[in-house]
């Protein structure tokens, strides 16, 4: 059965998601809608996106009224509100990450979800289906490293604020649109990966952060770099490093690695591996060629396929609202620690 997919706003990531979704057999790109009260640039984005993907711009009411599935691709400060509208309209809903800009926003989504029909599905974009994360999870589940005891996760990205990967730098720098800095933009990935791999909730967190590299973050009073310490249940610990920096080793746009020490072994997850170096005559430098698909693309496809299967098969998606609330509680505590300077307890822990 084909799902008619409506993009609710096309401010952020809509093109990447639409390009992938339209390759899937169960999906029909149905249209794009934007709130009438949205700023002109957001309405323009919606129109340009619709034109480029040859889909109609629909009124908010018609779009929500006639689609099967909504993908919320607004700026983060509208994520929760638009998700609520989609849920209240009875539509399966995928929200771009982060699912909201605070735990309280996500709780509001959860409240509306609780009142929705039981078979309505909701999730938020994640990278848990990245091949390396899946491999790590399989190894851990097999008992290959015993009980995970310590993790360190590092997610660093380079550039992108020139419009190449971030449509407008304000979408990650200006709290009025982004809700925060790079913690909120990227922190979702390692926080959710740590929980996915360990199966443990965070108890308390300490974080340091700052605008270390780019004045655009400093001008808005948000961070481009965060380091954090997490204490999880069962005395397991983790560190996180999330940053947008000038360069990445190997000239890659991003690097995501994780090391896990277990009671009976260890493992390393490197989302850029395995890879080969390819040098061509006449080219100044070698290029990196990953084995198989690029990890973020594979992760995204895995996410969409999982969600569509959840809708089709009447089961929860891999990341459901309870997972989202737990991960968001951790992100909220990290943000709280950045603000207070103190070690903060995770709400609900």
């Amino acid at each position: 059965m084909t799902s008619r997919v409506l993009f609710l706003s096309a401010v952020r990531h809509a093109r990447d998601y639409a390009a992938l979704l339209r390759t899937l057999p169960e999906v029909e790109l149905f249209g794009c809608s934007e709130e009438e009260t949205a700023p002109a640039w957001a309405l323009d984005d919606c129109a340009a996106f619709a034109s480029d993907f040859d889909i109609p711009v629909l009124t908010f009411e018609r779009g929500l009224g006639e689609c099967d599935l909504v993908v919320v691709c607004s700026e983060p400060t509208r994520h929760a509100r638009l998700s609520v509208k989609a849920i209240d309209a009875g539509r399966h809903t995928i929200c771009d990450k982060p699912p909201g800009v605070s735990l309280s926003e996500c709780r509001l989504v959860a409240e509306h979800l609780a009142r929705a029909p039981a078979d309505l599905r909701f999730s938020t974009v994640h990278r848990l289906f990245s091949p390396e994360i899946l491999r790590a999870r399989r190894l851990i589940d097999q008992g290959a490293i015993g009980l995970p005891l310590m993790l360190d996760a590092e997610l660093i990205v380079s550039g992108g604020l020139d419009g190449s990967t971030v449509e407008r730098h304000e979408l990650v720098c200006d709290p009025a649109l982004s809700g925060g800095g790079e913690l909120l933009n990227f922190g979702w990935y390692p926080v959710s990966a740590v929980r996915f791999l360990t199966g443990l909730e965070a108890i308390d967190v300490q974080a340091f952060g700052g605008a270390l590299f780019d004045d655009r973050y400093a001008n808005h009073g948000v961070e481009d770099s965060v380091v954090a310490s997490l204490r999880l249940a069962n005395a397991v610990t983790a560190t996180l490093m999330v940053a947008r920096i000038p360069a990445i080793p190997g000239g890659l746009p991003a690097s995501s690695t994780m090391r896990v020490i277990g009671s009976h072994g260890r493992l390393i997850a490197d989302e850029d591996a395995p890879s080969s170096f390819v040098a061509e005559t006449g080219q100044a430098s070698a290029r990196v060629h990953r084995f198989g698909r690029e990890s973020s693309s594979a992760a995204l496809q895995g996410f969409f396929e999982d969600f569509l299967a959840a809708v089709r098969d009447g089961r929860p998606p891999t990341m459901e609202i309870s997972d989202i609330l737990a991960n968001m509680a951790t992100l909220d505590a990290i943000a709280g620690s950045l603000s207070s300077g103190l070690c903060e307890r995770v709400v609900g822990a």
Partner: protein
Amino acid sequence: MRRLGIIGAGAVAGDHLAAIGRVPGLTVVHVMDRHLERAQALAALAGRASFSTDLESLWSADLDAVLICTSPESHADFAVEAFRTGVGVMLEKPAALTVADLDRVLEAAAASGKPLLVGQTARFQPAHMEMCETLRSGALGEPRLVHLTWYAGHVWPGAWRAWQLDVDRCGGHIVHNGIHALDLLIWLLQDEPLRIFAREIPTWSSVMPTTDSFHMLVEFARGALATIEVSYAFAGGAPPLRRIVVAGTGGIASIDSEIEPRGTSGSGASFPIRSAVDGLVHQFEHLQDILANDVAPITTPDQVRSALAAAFAARQSAATGQPVRLGGTL
């Protein structure tokens, strides 16, 4: 030939002796230990070195410098005594178990005019010397973000008797080995820790007097941030994992043992990796340069003090569960 004495004939002294044997211009002439047989055994390895259980014999050996290789609780007193005698000092880390004791050492060194080199061997490991050169060249601009990871499987000699498990004698693992990481970053960044947060992680045994693992978050005075993870809890003789990533305003540099050539012997032991070998040899090459050419030790007093203060702040943080702010200036 520069004449060296050794105080303390334990395991690390043996490592020192082996390294000194590879550095022309240095010779060990006397070994002192409270156990005569241990002093004798190490002196035998040094060739024709004399040995004793008393400081008077040591100081009468016409030394250029003494290597203080005892457990940390005795470092300060031996170092002060050496400086009063007019002998230079290579002092194992941590240099003291209180900042006040360290200040006594630093004051004695300054008064004597003799050199003090603290055994922050991590500075002398090839990977870190390479990273330092890169940073000093300006290629990375201002260093702003560091991720340092040292994971190994290591058991201290002596099992439950090991002084490394006695917090009163070593300061705890976060001081005893955390100071390596803290000193390294202080040196690489040429900056001092301003705020620190630490967690201690007892993986081998929940009742260990000091933990085998810990991690730290560090904020430096000029705003740089660092994450440090140290673990001695690798199971099954796995080769160590050593990784450092330094991001600067002008670029990034990283060194990762996981992509180094390595091998395993028939017994299953992994071969040393080149990025981490011979740190002690390079440390003693530096000592030889200090003694022969009047070069200043790279472990400057302010850096030594900053690292020790940061290590104790980390210990305090781990105990209280909250970050600790440091004072002072470099």
